[in-house]
C-alpha cells in the first residue's frame, strides 16, 4: 500500500517568525490520483507547495517522494526527480516567447534544442495555445500565462504536477475552457495536487480532498463529503463573494 503513495508529507511545519504558516501537516498523494487542497486565504496551501517543490525549506517534518526524502533538496533537483509546479502569481520568462518559455522547461530532459522544441510544440498544441507561440511572455494575457505555466511544468515531464489556483482571475468562459484542459491532463494518468477556491473544479477533478485552516489540516475525505464539513461551509460561505 505504501508504494502506491507517490508523495508522503509527514508532520510538516513551516514558521515565518511567530507565524506557523503550515502546522504539523501530514498528507499523502497516491500514484495517478488527483488531490484537491482547499482552505481559506492564508491557510498555508501555497506554503505547502513551496516546500514540496523545494522553493522553501520546512522548519520541521519530512516530505518523501517516490521513497526518497526531499525536504532538504534544491528546487531544480526536485524538478529533475519529477515534481512540476505552476505559480499562483504567474512567473513567466518575460523576454522569451511562449514557445521558448515551454522549451526552456523541456530542455532538462531533452538537452538538444531541436528535440526540446518538438516536445514543447506538442504540449502547447495539447493546451490549445499554439497560435501564441511567438508572443513574448510580457505580452500574454492572464489566461494565456496560466496555460503557459501549465505547459512549462508539463514540459519537465513530471510524475507529479502541482497546480496553484490556475482558475483565479479568469472569467467563467475561460474557466470552462481551462477545466477541459485540466481534464485532458488528468486523463494522461499523471498524479496531480490542485489548490483551488472554485469548488466546481475540485468536485469535477479531485478523487480526494484535504482542507487546511490557519496552517492546520482539518479534514480529509472525498470532495463531496469534504464540502459538508462544518469548517468548510463556514469558510466558503463567508468567502462566496470571492469564490465565484
Amino acid at each position, binding site marked *: 500500500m505504501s508504494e502506491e503513495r507517490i508523495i508522503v508529507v509527514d508532520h510538516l511545519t513551516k514558521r515565518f517568525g511567530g507565524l506557523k504558516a503550515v502546522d504539523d501537516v501530514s498528507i499523502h498523494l497516491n500514484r495517478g490520483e488527483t488531490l484537491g487542497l482547499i482552505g481559506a486565504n492564508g491557510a498555508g496551501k501555497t506554503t505547502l507547495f513551496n516546500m514540496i*517543490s*523545494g*522553493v522553501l525549506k520546512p522548519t520541521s517534518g519530512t516530505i518523501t517522494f517516490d521513497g526518497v526524502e526531499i525536504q532538504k533538496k*534544491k*528546487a*531544480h533537483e526536485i*524538478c*529533475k526527480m519529477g515534481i*512540476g*509546479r505552476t*505559480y499562483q502569481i504567474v*512567473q*513567466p*520568462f*518575460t*523576454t*522569451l*516567447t511562449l514557445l*521558448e518559455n515551454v*522549451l*526552456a*522547461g523541456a*530542455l*532538462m530532459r531533452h*538537452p*538538444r*534544442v531541436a528535440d*526540446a522544441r518538438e516536445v514543447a510544440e506538442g504540449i502547447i498544441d495539447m493546451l490549445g495555445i499554439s497560435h501564441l507561440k*511567438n508572443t513574448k*511572455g510580457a505580452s500574454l494575457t492572464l489566461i494565456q500565462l496560466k496555460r503557459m505555466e501549465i505547459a*512549462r*511544468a508539463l*514540459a*519537465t515531464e513530471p510524475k507529479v504536477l502541482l497546480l496553484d489556483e490556475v482558475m483565479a482571475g479568469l472569467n467563467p468562459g475561460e474557466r470552462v475552457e481551462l477545466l477541459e484542459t485540466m481534464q485532458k491532463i488528468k486523463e494522461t494518468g499523471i498524479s496531480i495536487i490542485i489548490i483551488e477556491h472554485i469548488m466546481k473544479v475540485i468536485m469535477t477533478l479531485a478523487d480526494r480532498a484535504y482542507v487546511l485552516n490557519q496552517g492546520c489540516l482539518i479534514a480529509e475525505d472525498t470532495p463531496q463529503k469534504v464540502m459538508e464539513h462544518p469548517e468548510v461551509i463556514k469558510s466558503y460561505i463567508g468567502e462566496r463573494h470571492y469564490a465565484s
Partner: protein
Amino acid sequence: MSKTLLKDKIAPKHILVLALLVLAFLFPQIVTQPYFIQIAITVLIYCYWSSAWNIIGGYAGQFALGNGVYIGIGAYVAVLFHQEGFGSPWIGMVLGGVISVMFAFIISKPCFKLRGTYFSLATVAFLHIVRYIILGFNSIFGMETNGGMGIMIPYTGRWQDMQFGKEGFYYVILVMLVLILVVSNVIRTSKMGYYLSAIKTNQGAASTIGINVPKYKMMAQCISAFCLALGGAVYVHFLLNVSPYDVFGYDLSLEIMIYCVIGGSGTLWGPVFGALVLGIINETLRVQLGSDIAPLASAFYGVALILIVRFAPGGLYQLGQMLINKIKGSLGKKKSETKEVSVQ
C-alpha cells in the same frame, strides 16, 4: 532569441555579416596609415572585451562590474610567465585564462548568493583588492612586477613572443573577435542560452523548471573571465607594457560594460555595435583633444547610459533594428506573409 522562420534560406543578414567580415579583413590593406590601424586595434579589442562581458552581463544578466580584473590577471600572467623564463607568452596566455577561471570560481561562489547590486559591488571590491596588491608590492612570489610602474615588455618582434607589428595585431584580434562571436552564438542558441535567458528574467521560476541556477551563472562567469583574460594578454603585448592603472583600472571595467549596454547587452551584435560606435568616437576624440577628454567622456557615457536604460533597454542595436522594421513595415504592406521575428 527567436529563430527566423525561414531558417534554411540565406537571409540578408547573413550577406551583411559576410560583407562586414570581408571589409574588416581588407581594412588594413585599404587604410594603411598606422594612426588608423592603431585606432582600429583598440576598437577591435573593446569589441572583443564587450562581447566577453556580454556572456555574464548580457546573456546571464549578472552585472559583474569589476570583471576587468580578469583582463589584468590574463595580462600579468602572460607577461610574467615569459619574463621569468617559463616559456612563450602564448602558453602564459592560456595559463592566465585558466588562473582567471579559478579566481572567477572562487570569487563568484559567494558572490552569486548576493543579488543585483550586491553582486556588482562584490566584483568591484575584488578588482580593487587585486589592484592594490599589485600597486603595493614590487615583486610577487619573487617575480618582478614593479608596483605602479608596471612591466615593460622588451621588443623582439618575434611572433613566439606575441609580437607581430600593427597589422599582425589587427588580424590576431580580429580573429579573436570572430571566435568569440562564434562562441557567443553557440551559447545563445543552445540549452545554455535558453537557461541564461530564463535565469536573467526569473530565477525562481528557472529553478523550478530544473535549472541549476548557480551552476549556469558560474559557467557564464568562467567563460567570460577566460575570454577577457586572453584579450588582456594579447593587448598588453601590443602596447609593450602592462600597467596596473590600465588593466586593473575601474575605468576599463566600466567602459566594457557601458559599450555592451549601450550597444545592446544580451544580443550577439550589440556589444560589437556599441564598442564600434563609442570606441571610434572615444579614440578619435582622445587623439584630437588629448587626455583632457577623460572627464568629458565619462560625462558623455553617463548621459548616454541613462538615456539608453530609460528609453531603449535593448540598446542601440535593437533601436536600429526597430527602426529598420518600421521602415520595412511602411514600405511593403505585405507583412502578413513574412512576419519578421526579431533575431537578437
